[in-house]
C-alpha cells in the first residue's frame, strides 16, 4: 500500500499520531492513529469511514497540519509536508488543502457577514487581486456552491444549516484547492438537505477537478459520492478499496458490521437479528493483536497475538484481517 512512487496527489505513509494523557503520575499514551497509509489521487473522492474513536478526524487534522504526526510522513504532490517551514509555503499548502468542518453552527464566526471568511481567504491566498475583483470572485465562488450572490451580505444567523455548510465549501473553493478535507460535512444536517451538499461535492470533483477526502460514519452517503473507501477502526485501517467492490463483498468483519447497521427501508428487519452490543475502544497503551478481536465472532488465536496488516486480497482491495487473509477469495460472513 505504501508505494515508493509518489505520483498520487497526496500520499500518507505509516502515519501515526499519539496523544499523551493522564497526569504527572500516570502518563499514558492514546493511540489515535497507528501506522496508517493511503493515497488520494486527482479528481477523486475518497471516503474515510469509521465510528468515533476510529481516528478519522485525527487523520484529517494531521493532513490539515493542525497536528504534527508522531511518526510517518505525508507527501503532497510528491514533496514531504513536514519540510514546509516558511510562511509562504505554509500558506500555499493551506490553500491547496483546506478543510470543511462538521458543525454548521460553529464553523462560521457569528459576528461577521458570511462573506468575511471568503474575503479573508482571498486576501491571504490571492493577494494579487484588487478589492473590486475580490468581491467579484467572492460572488463567483458563492454561485459555484449554489448560493446566490445576494447572500454575501447576510449574517450567519439568517442562513439555514445547509446554507452555512455551503459557505464552508465556498471558503475552501476561494483558495483554488486541489484537495478538500471534508470532516463529516453533512452529519449535522437534515436528511433532505444532505443530498444537495453531496451532489455539490460530486459536482466539484467533476467540473472543477477537486479531490475530496470525505470523512463520515454513514456508509450509504459514502457510497453515493465516493470512488474509493477506507474503513478505519480504533486508529487503524481495516479495509480499503473501490467502494462498490468493498460494499458488495466486504472482507473485514468490521466493514460487515457497519454495513449491517445501514437500515434498508425496503427490507423488514427482524428485531431478533444478531446485534453487536460492543463499542469501539479507546486505544490506550494497546497490546499487539487485532483491536477488533473482542467483538469479532471469527477471531482465531493469531488475532490475539499478531496485529494484522493490510494485504491485497483482490486487485486494489486490501483488508487487515488474519481470517480474511487466510481465504482471500471468499467474502467473510461475520455479521449478517
Amino acid at each position, binding site marked *: 500500500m505504501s508505494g515508493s512512487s509518489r505520483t498520487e496527489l497526496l500520499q500518507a505513509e505509516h502515519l501515526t499520531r499519539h496523544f499523551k494523557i493522564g497526569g504527572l503520575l500516570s502518563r499514558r499514551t492514546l493511540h489515535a492513529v497507528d501506522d496508517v497509509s493511503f493515497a488520494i489521487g486527482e479528481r477523486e473522492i475518497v471516503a474515510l469511514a469509521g465510528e468515533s474513536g476510529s481516528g478519522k478526524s485525527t487523520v484529517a487534522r494531521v493532513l490539515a497540519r493542525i497536528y504534527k504526526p508522531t511518526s510517518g510522513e505525508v507527501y503532497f504532490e510528491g514533496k514531504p509536508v513536514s519540510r514546509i517551514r516558511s510562511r509562504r509555503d505554509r500558506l500555499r499548502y493551506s490553500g491547496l488543502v483546506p478543510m470543511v468542518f462538521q458543525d454548521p453552527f460553529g464553523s462560521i464566526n457569528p459576528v461577521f457577514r458570511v462573506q468575511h471568511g471568503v474575503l479573508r481567504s482571498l486576501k*491571504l491566498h490571492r493577494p494579487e487581486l484588487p478589492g473590486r475583483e475580490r468581491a467579484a470572485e467572492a460572488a463567483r465562488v458563492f454561485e459555484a456552491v449554489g448560493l446566490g450572490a445576494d447572500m454575501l451580505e447576510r449574517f450567519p444567523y439568517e442562513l439555514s444549516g445547509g446554507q452555512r455548510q455551503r459557505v464552508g465549501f465556498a471558503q475552501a473553493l476561494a483558495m483554488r484547492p486541489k484537495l478538500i478535507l471534508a470532516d463529516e460535512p453533512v452529519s449535522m444536517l437534515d436528511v433532505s438537505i444532505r443530498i444537495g451538499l453531496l451532489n455539490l461535492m460530486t459536482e466539484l470533483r467533476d467540473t472543477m477537478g477537486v479531490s475530496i477526502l470525505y470523512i463520515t460514519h454513514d456508509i450509504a452517503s459514502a457510497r453515493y459520492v465516493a470512488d474509493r473507501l477506507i474503513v478505519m477502526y480504533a486508529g487503524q485501517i481495516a479495509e480499503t478499496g473501490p467502494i462498490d467492490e468493498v460494499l458488495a463483498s466486504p472482507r473485514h468483519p468490521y466493514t460487515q458490521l457497519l454495513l449491517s447497521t445501514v437500515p434498508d427501508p425496503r427490507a423488514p428487519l427482524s428485531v431478533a437479528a444478531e446485534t453487536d452490543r460492543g463499542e469501539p475502544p479507546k486505544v490506550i497503551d494497546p497490546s499487539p493483536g487485532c483491536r477488533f478481536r473482542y467483538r469479532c465472532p471469527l477471531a482465531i488465536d493469531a488475532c490475539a497475538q499478531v496485529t494484522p496488516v493490510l494485504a491485497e486480497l483482490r486487485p486494489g482491495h486490501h483488508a487487515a484481517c488474519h481470517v480474511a487473509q487466510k481465504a482471500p477469495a471468499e467474502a467473510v460472513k461475520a455479521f449478517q
Partner: protein
Amino acid sequence: MSIPLSLGQPAGEPRRQSTSQWAASHALARMGRAVRSNRKATVGTVLLVFFILVALFPGVIAKDNPSADAYKPHLGLSTAHLLGTTAYGQDMFAQLVWGTRNVIIIAFTVGLATTAIAVLVGVAAAYFGGLWDSSLGVLIDVLLVIPLFPLLIIIAAYAHGGGTLLLIVVITVTSWSYTARQLRAQALTLRSRDFLEAARVRGERRLYIVVMEVIPTMTSLIVASFLTNALYAILFASSLQFIGLGDPNTVSWGTMLYWAQNNAALQTGQPLWAIAPGACIAVLGAAFALLNYAFDEIGNPALRPVRKRAPQPVPQPAPRPARGSERA
C-alpha cells in the same frame, strides 16, 4: 429549552444599510431597538445619559462655585440654594452637580481601563496557552487572592492625598484580575470552536485571530464587564473618599459624604448633606446595574420576564368520532 432557529430568523430581509464587514453598524441598530423595547435598558440608559449630561455641562445647571464658601452656613432649602448650604457655607446643590463630573470620570476611566487590561491578559492567556497561560494565570490568581478592599485602603493610605488620578490607578490595579479570570474562562471555551480552527487552517496569524475573531465574539461579556467595573469603581471610590483617603478638597459625592460625616450632619439636622450624595451614588449605581441586567436579557431571551397575560381558557375541540381505521 431553546427557541428553535426557524422562529427567530428574519429570513429574507436584505441588509442594505452598510457594506462594512464589521457588524458594528448593524449591531448599533439592533442595540437601539433592544434598548427601546426592554424596560430595564430604557430606564438605565435614560439615567446614565442624564448623569453624563450633568457631568459634561455642570455650569448650565448650577451657577454657583461649589468650593466657594461664600454663603451663610446651615441654610435650609430655598430657591437660591436648592439643597441649602453646608456647614462651611457652600451651596450643596452646586457641589452635587459639579461632583457628578468627578464620579463619571472615575466610573468610565476605571471601567474602560480595567476591561481593557482584563481583555488583553485574559484572552492572551487563554489563546496562547502554554507558558503564557501559566505565567499570566499566576499573576491573575495572586491578585485575586488578596482581599480587595483592605488592599485598596493600604495603598490609598500610603499615598494619602494623591487625588483622583491615584484613586483611578489604585482601583484599576486591584480589580482587573476578576474580569481577567472571567474573560479567560470564556475565551477558553471559544478556543475549541470550529470557526477559530477554520481561521487557523486558512492561514491567519495568531494575533489576527485573537483580535479579529475571538474578541468580537466576546463583546457581550466585555460590555457586561465594563458595566460591572464602572459600578464597582463608583462604590469603591466613594467609599475611599468617605473614609478620607481621597483628596478631601476635590468636589465629589464621596467627599461630600466625608465632610458630612465630619460634621455629624445626620445628627445635627442637616440630613440632606449626607442623603443627597448617597442617593446619587445609589441611583447612578442602579443605572449601571440595570443596564447590566438588560444586556443579559437582550443577549439571552430565556431570561426575559414573561409577560403576564390573563389566563385564557384553553379551547377544547369538539369530540371527534372514533377513528377505528387509524389503528394499525
